[in-house]
């Protein structure tokens, strides 16, 4: 039996970067150096904040204690941290869909999930080893508002059932146990 109060959780950090070489690396180093596990980086190049900076959304995993250290280190490194952790999209949900994704119109699947749930797809990876005609899988990362993850998951199940796709759900909606 083991105690596990130091459970790893998923966090979303929104950063503002100045548009110059090395800015992204400068922002990612404090995360890795302080024990964070980078899950995805959404670099909104071409999209500027009111102050003329580039917004970047970083999903990472860390224990709560290490996460505090990461945010401190980012600020020390001069990175502008807009949001850290549970605010706008406080829950992240990763699912894997398998089946005839292409033949059943993947973009329709994604937009129906987004429309019905008010969730945002922040990351999508497709793996189609046998070509697009055959079975393939997609990993989709959804950002939802607080307490909306269970509802988003229910919609995913519904759309998947209709298209005869297999859903591999995260263990607990919204939680990364």
């Amino acid at each position: 039996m083991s105690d596990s109060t130091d459970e790893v959780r998923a966090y979303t950090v929104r950063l503002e970067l100045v548009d110059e070489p090395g800015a992204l690396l400068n922002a990612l180093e404090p995360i890795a150096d302080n024990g964070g596990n980078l899950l995805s980086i959404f670099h909104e190049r071409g999209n500027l904040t009111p102050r003329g900076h580039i917004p970047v959304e970083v999903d990472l995993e860390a224990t709560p204690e290490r996460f505090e250290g990461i945010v401190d280190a980012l600020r020390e490194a001069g990175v502008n941290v807009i949001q850290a952790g549970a605010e706008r999209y406080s829950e992240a949900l990763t699912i894997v869909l398998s089946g005839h994704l292409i033949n059943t119109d993947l973009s329709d699947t994604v937009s129906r999930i987004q429309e019905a749930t008010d969730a945002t797809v922040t990351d999508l990876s497709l793996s189609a080893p046998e070509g697009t005609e055959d079975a393939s899988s997609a990993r989709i990362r959804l950002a939802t508002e607080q307490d909306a993850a269970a509802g988003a998951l229910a919609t995913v199940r519904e759309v998947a059932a209709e298209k005869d796709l297999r859903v591999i759900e995260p263990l607990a909606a919204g939680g990364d146990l």
Partner: protein
Amino acid sequence: MRVAVIGAGAVGSSVAELAADYGHTVTGYADSQSAAVDADGIDVQATVDRKATDGIVGDDDPADAVSGPYDVLVEATPTTLGDAQPGFGHVETALERDRHVVLANKGPVAERYGDVRALERESAGTVLFEATVGGAMPVLSTIADFDPEHITAVRGVLNGTANFILSRMGGEGLGYEHVLAEAQDLGVAEADPTFDVDGTDAALKGVIVANVLSEAGEEYTLEDADVEGIQDIDGSALDLAAEDGRTVRLIAEVVEGEVRVGPRLVPEHAPLAPTGTRNIVQLETEHAGLLNISGRGAGGPETASAVLADVGRLPEL
């Protein structure tokens, strides 16, 4: 205690062989065709040898073992669904005779929990079934110690065969059929692995946990569980999970009165992502956070050790 062991498979034979080690006497031992019964204790080694050479354990009738001299009946016949027979009948006979029952057979407590508890209430005997969930791991006794009222959820990897298949697929990038064949060669999967890969075995364990946790006294059977297996799971799904620092495991979950079993995404290094045939159960407690119990979830001596731990918990009759 005097112990009668019904069922002479991997678990039953291990219970018979190890009983003396725990200070107990085997007074009956039966397979489906034959039995050895002796109020002073049978010669366990001789019956195990005879089973190996002649295919029978003794010259007595199996019914004689069930109605014979013992304090505890150990029910270790294969798990059956629906009416849970013949295991349920053995439990009934022992309790009506005011004897204790220790189950390794999941059927009676997964499919007819209410009936078993009703018989127990009328009997001087007690029913324990630690071995039915997680083999050697002390899952049910830990739940009992914590008090089911203070446990909010139970999640776990409760089938070693399915876990072996998923961890090999994830680790080596191999296909489902390939890994299943390998598991059968290694003896990790049975020739007919249906109940392991379609989630039934894990679901039966989830149902038993739900019955134990049920405060309202609501009874669960396999029919109440939402079950999805791992058959033909696509390798590309595991690849995508791995790219994201995750993996896929067949997880049984008992939360808020619901039993669900299915492949789930879990962080690669999470406690709920053991590799190989290892099992783990995670209790979510009201006041003590998460508690993990891991170990061997199957195997003759492993499961027998849980059976004999139950025998040791029983009061003198």
